[in-house]
């Protein structure tokens, strides 16, 4: 199984994602430069965290026009699993592969901390290995993670069970204090209508080994390996 990890100018979590896929999970992994026009046979695509193009204009606003985004959109359209982490999530929003947009954090501060998120949906390729309601402790590192969507879009996301992760406290309660950035409905991550495209602000790839303080993020990568293996055996 091959992970394709897209590298934009300014990506800085690409090696973390590569490490998680290749060294922790023992899967194939390859970097894909943003100017490439092919995903080189990747079975799963990761848009990693970082500050693509220096966050100029808006986070992810320039990266969405990179040549690689055309094959990423086609891959997503065909049902291929795509995971956008942090800046990768912001790029998916700008590209319209997921709905909504990011605003500056409610308190205008860059948050670098471990937070808890609750797995709300377990029928996406990145969460099938998780238990419903499972609490994951993951790092966040962002200044623009305040998820916004119009009231109609938010209602649609909730009704179609597309809110995949929500900020919560250690006990899994979605309190206002547990929401680090002011995101609407405490949203930490969502999935596409077909559920194969998932974006989240916390960094599962930086929490795949106990030595890093948490191995809770591994379940996302583990899930997609299982999802693809199940798909291949059908």
């Amino acid at each position, binding site marked *: 199984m091959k992970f394709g990890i897209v590298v934009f100018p300014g990506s800085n979590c690409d090696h973390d994602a590569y490490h998680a896929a290749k060294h922790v999970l023992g899967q194939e992994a390859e970097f894909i430069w943003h100017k490439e026009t092919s995903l080189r046979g990747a079975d799963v695509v990761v848009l990693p965290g970082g500050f693509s193009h220096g966050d100029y204009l*808006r986070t992810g606003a320039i990266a969405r026009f990179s040549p690689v985004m055309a094959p990423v959109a086609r891959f997503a359209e065909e049902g291929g699993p795509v995971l956008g982490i942090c800046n990768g999530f912001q790029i998916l929003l700008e590209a319209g592969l997921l709905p*909504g947009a990011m605003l500056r954090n409610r308190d205008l501060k860059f948050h670098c901390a471990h937070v808890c998120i609750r797995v709300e949906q377990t029928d996406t390729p990145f969460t099938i290995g998780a238990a419903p309601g499972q609490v994951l402790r993951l790092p966040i590192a962002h200044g623009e993670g305040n998820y*916004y*969507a119009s009231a109609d879009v938010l209602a649609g996301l909730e009704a179609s069970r597309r809110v995949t992760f929500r900020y919560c406290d250690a006990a899994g309660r979605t309190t206002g204090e547990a929401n680090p950035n002011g995101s609407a409905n405490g949203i930490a991550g969502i999935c596409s209508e077909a559920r194969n495209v998932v974006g989240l602000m916390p960094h599962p790839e930086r929490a795949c080994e106990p030595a890093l303080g948490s191995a809770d993020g591994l379940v996302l990568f583990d899930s997609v390996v299982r999802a693809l293996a199940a798909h291949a055996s059908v």
Partner: protein
Amino acid sequence: MKARVFVTLKPSVLDPQGRTIADALHSLGYTRVADVRQGKYFELEIETSSAEEAQAIAAEVADKVLANPVIESFRIELDQAPPRPAGAGRPQEARLS
């Protein structure tokens, strides 16, 4: 021809930066500044002498790149080149939001 593009958050979107600036102004005693909305300003130098074409290009660029229509709206003003003498009228202005 120069096009000036103003991008602002939609009224329905909370602007935490504008809010913070307003609070700072209030603490400085500018209590009559009721609210502040922060936005972005772009100057595009467009190689055409046609106002219609400049307007169309600026609008397309603003909609596609400069603004995110989910959270922002934009307004375009065109500067006819060469600049008119003072008092010869205001630059053409178009509002699209």
